[in-house]
């Protein structure tokens, strides 16, 4: 029992409570490995709490309580995995736990709400949600702090209900119910006064989401800090807009220099860009591997990690990402040599398209374990794969501004949802052909007007090409409007009634996790 995938009925571990009744037995080797990672993660969390400012932060911010569920989050992300797949998952998710504890400790050290160091706070630049932080490469003495990550984005990966209170606060304030819950939750954090106060100034992204446009000005009032909006264009296929965005980047750099007194450092910038290019090359290798019969790094095992290293939203040092990428690459080739599969049998190769609802829902893992659907790649991963200038020359210094502009225009999520028809629709079929995919898992975020308006076009084009599309409505950070079981039911119904298939693990079709984290 336990050594092979699908050797246990994983659904029976859920009995209606917040957590599972026990952890998996994965065979001696894999269980011992998982146990050691569990000890290490608890060690990281205890180490975080050893610092007085961390304890103050823990008892000041309501959302910090949900971080106690981090081991449960790791269990969900590694559910059903064995061998190299398990090791890859732990390599990435344990790194995320370590980096989040490090970033939180730094954040609380500078947090003026809890008596943090004002001098440290003045070395911080508060960043807006999902915004690229590569600008900070040129300011090695400053810290980019995407404050909303901790109280909103990362929080909801851990806990289903983490953002519900803040969503309600924003709606009570007057934000409508039909807009994206991500920026709504961030605004709710501000209204509730549950946002750490750090930073000399703020950099906003011009998110085109309705609630972000509504919320930015209000958040500025709460922060009472000078702010600058990088109003970059997101129609990335248009070269004219690149010039405009480059001007915005120059403006942002000038703004930071004026506010902080620091000067842009080209040596530091090109050093970090060199490492970033290495990460991109590793990612391109992963994509090539995933085109084969033995994809080794599917969506469930890479998506969140890619989000973090692509945007740099945890301000971890570039060398740390290089080490993780090296381990993932080694495990990937080891798995490929053994012809290991990410699940018992790959029945369907899928493109996971749409904004993420799958972190707290553990959706991509569930697709593997229950139905053998491998998310070969994900919309949020398919951002920039350009190799940018990384040698310090006079020509490259000018090129670097355009490279930064390119990165900002290809911001995670929005380059596909807001970047125009060719990026949001045409590219879907190109990826299906390139990665030999027969299915699209369409994560339809109810409040995302961009993607929902293309619903009919996706259906028509998929039918022409014989590609199966399973629609999964969800409400992103609000589990009340579409919970985990309703998302799973969409797949269950399709797989049974349309394809006539049986699940690998019938206990996973309906899971008693309605109260789970």
């Amino acid at each position, binding site marked *: 029992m336990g050594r092979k995938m699908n050797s246990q009925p994983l659904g029976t571990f859920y009995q209606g*409570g*917040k*957590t*599972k*009744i*026990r*952890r998996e*037995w994965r065979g001696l080797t894999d269980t011992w490995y998982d*146990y050691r990672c*569990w*000890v290490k993660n*608890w060690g990281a969390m205890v180490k975080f709490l050893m610092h007085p400012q961390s304890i103050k932060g823990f*008892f*000041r*911010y*309501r959302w910090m*309580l949900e971080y*106690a*569920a981090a*081991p*449960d989050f790791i*269990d969900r992300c590694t559910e059903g995995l064995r061998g190299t797949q398990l090791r890859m998952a732990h390599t990435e998710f344990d790194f995320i736990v370590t980096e989040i504890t490090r970033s939180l400790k730094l954040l609380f050290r500078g947090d003026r709400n809890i008596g943090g160091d004002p001098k440290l706070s003045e070395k911080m630049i508060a960043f807006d949600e999902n915004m690229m932080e590569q600008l900070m490469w040129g300011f090695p003495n400053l810290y980019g702090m995407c404050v909303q990550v901790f109280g909103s984005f990362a929080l909801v990966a851990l806990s289903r209900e983490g953002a519900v209170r803040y969503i309600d606060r924003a709606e009570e*304030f007057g934000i409508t119910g039909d807009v994206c819950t991500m920026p709504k939750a961030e605004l709710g954090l*501000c*209204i*509730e*006064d*549950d946002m750490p106060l750090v930073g000399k100034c703020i950099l906003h992204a011009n998110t085109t989401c309705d609630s972000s446009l*509504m919320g930015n*000005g*209000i958040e*500025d*009032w*709460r922060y009472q800090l000078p702010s600058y909006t990088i109003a970059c264009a997101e129609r990335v296929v248009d070269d004219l807009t690149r010039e405009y965005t480059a001007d915005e980047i120059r403006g942002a750099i000038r703004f930071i220099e004026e506010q902080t007194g620091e000067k842009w450092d080209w040596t530091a910038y090109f050093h970090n860009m060199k490492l970033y290019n290495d990460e991109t090359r590793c990612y391109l290798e992963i994509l090539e591997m995933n085109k084969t019969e033995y994809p080794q790094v599917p969506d469930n095992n890479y998506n969140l990690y890619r989000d973090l290293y692509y945007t740099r939203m945890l301000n971890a040092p570039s060398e740390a990402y290089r080490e993780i990428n090296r381990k993932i690459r080694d495990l990937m080739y080891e798995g490929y040599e053994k012809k290991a599969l990410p699940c018992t049998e790959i029945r369907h190769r899928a493109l996971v398209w749409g904004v993420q609802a799958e972190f707290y829902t553990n959706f991509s893992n569930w697709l593997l374990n229950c139905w053998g659907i491998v998310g070969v790649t994900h919309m949020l991963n398919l951002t920039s794969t350009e190799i940018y200038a990384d040698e310090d020359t006079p020509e490259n210094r000018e090129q670097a501004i355009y490279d930064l502009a390119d990165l900002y225009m290809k911001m995670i999520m929005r380059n596909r949802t807001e970047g125009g028809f060719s990026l949001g629709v045409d590219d879907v079929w190109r990826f299906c052909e390139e990665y030999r995919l027969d299915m699209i898992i369409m994560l339809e975020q109810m409040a995302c007007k961009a993607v929902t308006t293309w619903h009919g076009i996706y259906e028509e084009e998929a039918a022409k090409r014989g590609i199966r599309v399973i629609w999964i409505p969800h409400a992103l950070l609000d589990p009340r409007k579409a919970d985990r079981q309703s998302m799973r039911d969409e797949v269950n119904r399709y797989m049974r009634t349309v394809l006539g298939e049986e699940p690998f693990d019938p206990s996973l079709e309906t899971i008693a996790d309605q109260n789970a984290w």
Partner: protein
Amino acid sequence: MNKLVKIPVVAAGAGAGLFAVSIVVYYFNLDMRLIEALHPYLSKWYDHIERRPFNPPKEVF
């Protein structure tokens, strides 16, 4: 028993005991079950934290 022998033996025994307890906690998910039990009580703590009121001027929005 000689102290030089006793101390490491006791330490090894304590270590083995701790290891056994940790395996039980890990396998039966007792760490998360404890957090689950404490969660409602800890949540109430945050209801009593003093917060700044939110009254932005009308021209903000």
